[in-house]
């Protein structure tokens, strides 16, 4: 029963939403809006699951004094302080909560994002090593595209920007579209498997 009831709900709702995409009628649109309202109402409760998970994982680490348990203290302190700041002083501009957001969260996120530039350089080095014929083609294409994006490319030859555009618009776009078609079919097949109850792994266990 633990699996069957969710499965019945999924299959029923799934077919209803498939029907919704072909039925523009107000009845169908209202049903969809009603459902969206419920999603909005229910999903915040799932936040508590996340918070509980955090407390359980890090609480266990602190309790058992596992290696590096101090990080867990910092994690939970950050969670509690930020939440308290929001509850006590509100989340307006100028409150401690916003101060934390602007002066702690944002710079740290920006720092992580900034690391991406170095990782891209590292990944580019790996990708553009001409170890095989395919990698050489990739290297040449990449050089042309990169030169085509900067004024230097046009200064070297007027054909470089055009070649760059052609590479992006023809072989690159064709490959992307091929992947997208495959993805579309994959999504349809997976959805169909879920709708028909063929794919049930995501449901977990318990009969």
């Amino acid at each position: 029963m633990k699996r069957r009831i969710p499965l019945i709900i999924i299959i029923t709702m799934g077919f209803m939403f498939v029907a919704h995409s072909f039925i523009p009628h107000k009845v169908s649109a209202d049903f969809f809006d009603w459902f969206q309202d419920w999603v909005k109402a229910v999903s915040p409760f799932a936040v508590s699951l996340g918070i509980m998970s955090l407390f359980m994982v890090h609480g266990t680490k602190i309790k058992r004094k596992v290696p590096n348990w101090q990080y867990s203290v910092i994690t939970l302190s950050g969670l509690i302080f930020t939440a308290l700041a929001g509850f006590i002083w509100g989340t307006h501009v100028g409150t401690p909560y916003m101060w934390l957001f602007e002066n702690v969260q944002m710079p740290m996120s920006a720092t992580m994002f900034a690391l991406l530039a170095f990782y891209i350089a590292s990944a580019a080095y790996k990708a553009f090593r001409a170890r095989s014929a395919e990698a050489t083609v990739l290297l040449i294409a990449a050089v042309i595209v990169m030169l085509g994006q900067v004024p230097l490319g046009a200064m070297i030859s007027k054909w470089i920007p055009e070649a760059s555009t052609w590479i992006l618009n023809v072989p690159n776009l064709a490959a992307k579209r091929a992947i997208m078609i495959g993805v579309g079919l994959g999504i349809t097949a997976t959805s169909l498997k879920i709708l028909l109850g063929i794919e049930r792994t995501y449901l977990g266990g318990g009969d």
Partner: protein
Amino acid sequence: MKLNYAKAGIVLFLMVFGFLLAPIPSHAAVDTSSYIVENLRANDIPDDDGSGLVLSWKPLPKEKRIIEYRIYRGVTSDSLFYHGKVDVNVKTGVAGDVMYYYDSGYNRFVDIQSPRKLKKEKQQPDDSPLFGRLPRDITVTGPQLTNYRILGVIPEKDFLYKNTKIEITEDDETKVYAGLKLRHFHYLLKKLRAEKEYYYTVIAVTESRKYMPYAEPVIGIPIDNSPEKIRELYSVYVEDKTRLQFEWIRSLFTDDQTNHSVYLVKKTDLNKFNAYVEEQQKAEMDPELETSLENPAQLIYQRYCGYPYTPDNTVAVNIIDGKIINEDRDIDVEVGNIEDYVAVFSLQDRAGYETFSDPSTFEITNSSNLPKISDEWIVEDRKNDKGDYNAIYWEKPTVFLTNCTYLNDDKTKILVNYDIYKNVKYDKIKNVYFIVSDEDGKEITSINEFYQDNKLKITLEKPSNKISFEMRVVANGDTGEDQIYTQDLIFNEDVKSLQPGLLYLNGEEVNKYTYSIYKNNYSNEEWRLSKNTLGAQREIVDNISFSSTTFKGVSKFDAKKGLFLVTPTFTVRLDDELENPIVTNLYAEEVAKSIENYKKEIAEYTASKDTLETEADITNADAAIEYYQEQIELVKNNPILKKAATIKSKKSRLKFLEKVKTIAGRSFKYKMVKTDGKAHFALSEVYYTEEVGKLPFNKSARETYTTLGKDHFYPIPNWFQADKLPALFATFIFGFMVFFMIRQAKSGKELYIRPIAGIDEIDNAIGRATEMGKPILFVPGLSGISDVATLAGLSILGRVAKKAAEYDTKILVPVRDYIVLPIAQEVVKEAHYEAGRPDSHDKNSVFFITTAQFAFVAGVNGIMIREKTATNFYMGMFFAESLIMTETGSTTGAIQIAGTDAVTQIPFFITTCDYTLIGEELYAASAYLAREPLQLGTLKAVDYYKFIILAFVIIGTIFSTVHATFLINAFPTK
């Protein structure tokens, strides 16, 4: 760095200390008196209905770090309630010397989101008159009802079915009201009352949210002014039709306007007219002033115009046999030589004020100089929608040039962009023909755009300053060969490029005129603007919302029952003559009582006639008697009210009335005006057809609407979106193929599945982690459960977790989405049970990190480095963080397998991971791993379906190459 207890304590202390102290510098002791707002004033807003005041004050300097100004209002200086705020950018401050805040029109009074109780404003002294927002508490808000004009915005169903009948007796007269709880209102809105005193103050709030002292409250009194003067009136006399045409620029403030009037003034009377206008203006300033002058202007046209719609701004008045006659408005004017007259337009408001435009001299012209409206225009329900649009379309498709760019330095290769305005009737464009000529008229090239990609590449012999285009569209239906559009590309010095010039159709400039579509329903006599379009456009869709809201004035309340009271009457529609509203009552018994009341009024007026002395009073009494007799007639004999009276059940009666009201409010008739904006316009007739389509009502609801479907059009909701038929057909084919292949697989037929290295290596990767005694990391993507990629990721997680459980290897699953978390936990738990190793399941192995994208990455990277994971799986949807994770995994020496359908992230995964499942392979992985007939059958069906798509792509390419576009056109364009 390894943290010990002492170091962690220091870090924690620094965090707390920094957190507490950081805002303190801005909290340092300051002289708060210098933060009091100065020069606060409340002035009347001109040209309005007496509901607007504008506050002004001197903003504090930027150094004060002000983040917002809060405005408080009340009817006494000792109780001021929070009204609104003006946000300020703390870094830039306020640029000007004065700040303004407009308190005008309807704004929020109270609603279900208002605070429960009234609270003193924070950080103010005990004797402060400042309070927070008005609360839901009816004992506080109820007494405020009389201080404002309150408008209740009520969902129609709540008004009809959730009311409580309340009877109130005042001065021996019992009145019935409908009582509604606050939760039955969308909201209550308020507007200032004219001539009433209101007190205002403003406080500044600093960056650290310190509420500064309030300024001395000031008084503002809104004044009901005469309407705004229109900026321009255009007057045209069409000599051959003996017709006067007027068009004007609409005023901005239209809230309380009631009448549009047009007057003729003899040029010889202009001085008298100006004196009259001047006297009226003085009288407005000084109500005590007695006026003596008569208006010498002759009224030739008048119509009702009402809030809240955009009214028609054109009028055509016919002169027949030298006279203008309108019996409804009591107009009978003899017109002499039109050159002896000027025209004046006026706006009247509810207070009786009238504002005249400047006199406008007639331009005399002939109808041949006016635009023509084609008879070929159609109104119908828009297909394939939920029933909220009517479509209005006319004439044949338009093609026009939109842009031009040079493709080479010699300026001999150009890229020309074009566009097409089509409509419902001509929706499939077959060909667009272009003939391109140079400055000398020599043909450069001719192009047939059989597939319209909206661009043309043209090679010129030499650079040119002018290129001419002749264009013709061939679509489905008869587009004929006579629709030749011409347009030039002309060199523009400013942009140093060729730019499209004016568009002509058979020699007439297309965009000289615009189309205005007006509409009108059964509930309102006034035409309102639906849309304005360019002259080149060929269709509009008119949105008819499902709004079912009732607007009611609220002036009374019942504190004991917690009810706001509104009148229980409501208008169903106008009668067939569009003169009298058909009004009824929520309570059927009150309808019968209203007849008695009308009779009583008639008796009183009849009796009073004997005592009346002046003829005007007697005429007024007669008019009142006639009005009440008409009302009795209406209540007794109107078919709608008669039918409603026969319905016994209260709910059924209201349902019937609601249905009739909905039809009235959502059925529109349409007319079209083609104009140059200066009174050179052509008016269409109201659109009419004898072919009544299917209507979505039962007979009883629509029997009182005899013209429904003929001139009034109700948008019909559709049960099937026909343009999605190919998608439905394709889905059925796919479904059939899946079933077929599953049957094949079940019957034992060997299905060949192309090997995918990434999937084959999953077992080896898990084995590697087992051998090394290190955990496996599995990231199921960053998106939510509604993303199919996440579901595919979770399916793979189930297989991987089962293998890991069999090998007794620890698996770590960090999750970003808290809805995905319990599902992932359940999947891993079940995998351990299936593997027969429930003992090895650690409930904390699947855990939530954070929803913040880069904080999540930091967490995952930390796990990789600390736990030294031997195998990393990334299966699902990823964004910019993918490379940061996989590069870190690469440096820790883990074997990495990724799978995603995010096209932009695939290159990063290929570069940094050992194996990558590209796009669809992610969805196939679960089936590969399961090796069950059901799963394999689906996979095989996908492969065959791809073959069909490929076949269509190839065939479509071949057909298109030979100008056969039927295959492309068979598919929907969106």
